[in-house]
């Protein structure tokens, strides 16, 4: 599983990366957390607000600082 955090380096984006890493540890799922700061890529996802959470190429949340628990739910829905 590939978890991407889209954001151009704002405080919330950094916090979301930390929360995603926490969520991955909690679930024990095999996943890599990648920070995407490149603007072409962020815009390519078609979002207008950051930070955004992307799992396996699908944007699941935008413009919101999710807690680790909320990310755990998204990981669960994706079916490990």
């Amino acid at each position, binding site marked *: 599983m590939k978890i991407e955090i889209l*954001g*151009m380096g*704002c405080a*919330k*984006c950094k916090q979301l990366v930390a929360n995603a890493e926490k969520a991955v540890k909690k679930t024990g799922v095999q996943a890599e957390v990648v920070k995407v700061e490149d*603007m*072409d*890529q*962020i*815009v*390519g*996802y*078609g*979002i*207008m*607000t*950051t930070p955004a959470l*992307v799992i396996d*190429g*699908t*944007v*699941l*949340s*935008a*413009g919101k600082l999710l807690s680790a628990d909320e990310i755990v739910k998204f990981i669960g829905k994706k079916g490990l």
Partner: protein
Amino acid sequence: MIKPIMDWLVYEIFKMPRGAILSEAVNFFLYDTVKIFLLLVVIIFIVSIIRTFFSPEKTRAILSQKKTYTGNVLASLLGIVTPFCSCSAVPLFLGFIEAGVPLGVTFSFLVASPMINEVALIMLWGLFGWKIAFLYIGSGLVVAITSGIVIGHLKVEDLVEKFEHKKVGSVALGAEMTVKDRIDFAREYTLDILKKIWIYVVIGIGLGAWIHGYVPADFLAKFAGRDNWFAVPLATLVGIPLYSNAAGVIPLVSALTEKGVALGTALAFMMAVTGLSLPEFLILRRVMKLKLLVIFASVVGIGIILTGYLFNFILR
């Protein structure tokens, strides 16, 4: 309601003499701080609930293919209620342009959104009264609408940086928010803002109280009174780098108007603090040619300066 409690605290509990400069400054500080924080908590909460009904995506859908004038008015109004953070300015700008929102209409949004924000309005309402707060909203809207119309007429679409990006992935955002989601969002948002600004508010009110008590009245009338023509443009220029400190700047300005700074000059200064932001320009440089940024800043800056002169002329 707050006033008697503060009087009691200062004169009965702290046993400070009535009428002394220090007691008045302390009283002024406590009264303003409590009042502003109460207003901040209540109003930011209400505004964030309203914001959950608007998203940049919905706003974009409304504005796409809108014509000049109607589009500019709508964009400025939607700018007030659509959540916006300067860190998202770039994806938002590109998102608007690609969806067919005209450039001038996009600019109306970009001007109104940060300028007419709840924190600035609360501080204005709490420290200057509701009339000035509404005056600020009204003139902010006029500046945003006209700036967008002017930029639209300049036909500067070629000054938007070309962006080559391929579509990657898909978007599957969650379902509609429940009432509980909205309340949770508003609570978090309110705490977030308060955490960010409380120190500036306290320092701003503290300095304001000091000025209120110790700086002689009319001290600044000579430099920043309404007869001094260069006070307005100077105040506008000084406001540009002060972006993140709108919360701290307004209490200071409030105290300075008591000491002779003309109200139009003060309004121009506050609009520059919120509406013209250096960090936002740096971010937007990635999607706009320098020339477009300069046009953007100049058009908005001139609008703000004219507003300042107008109010210095009217509010006599």
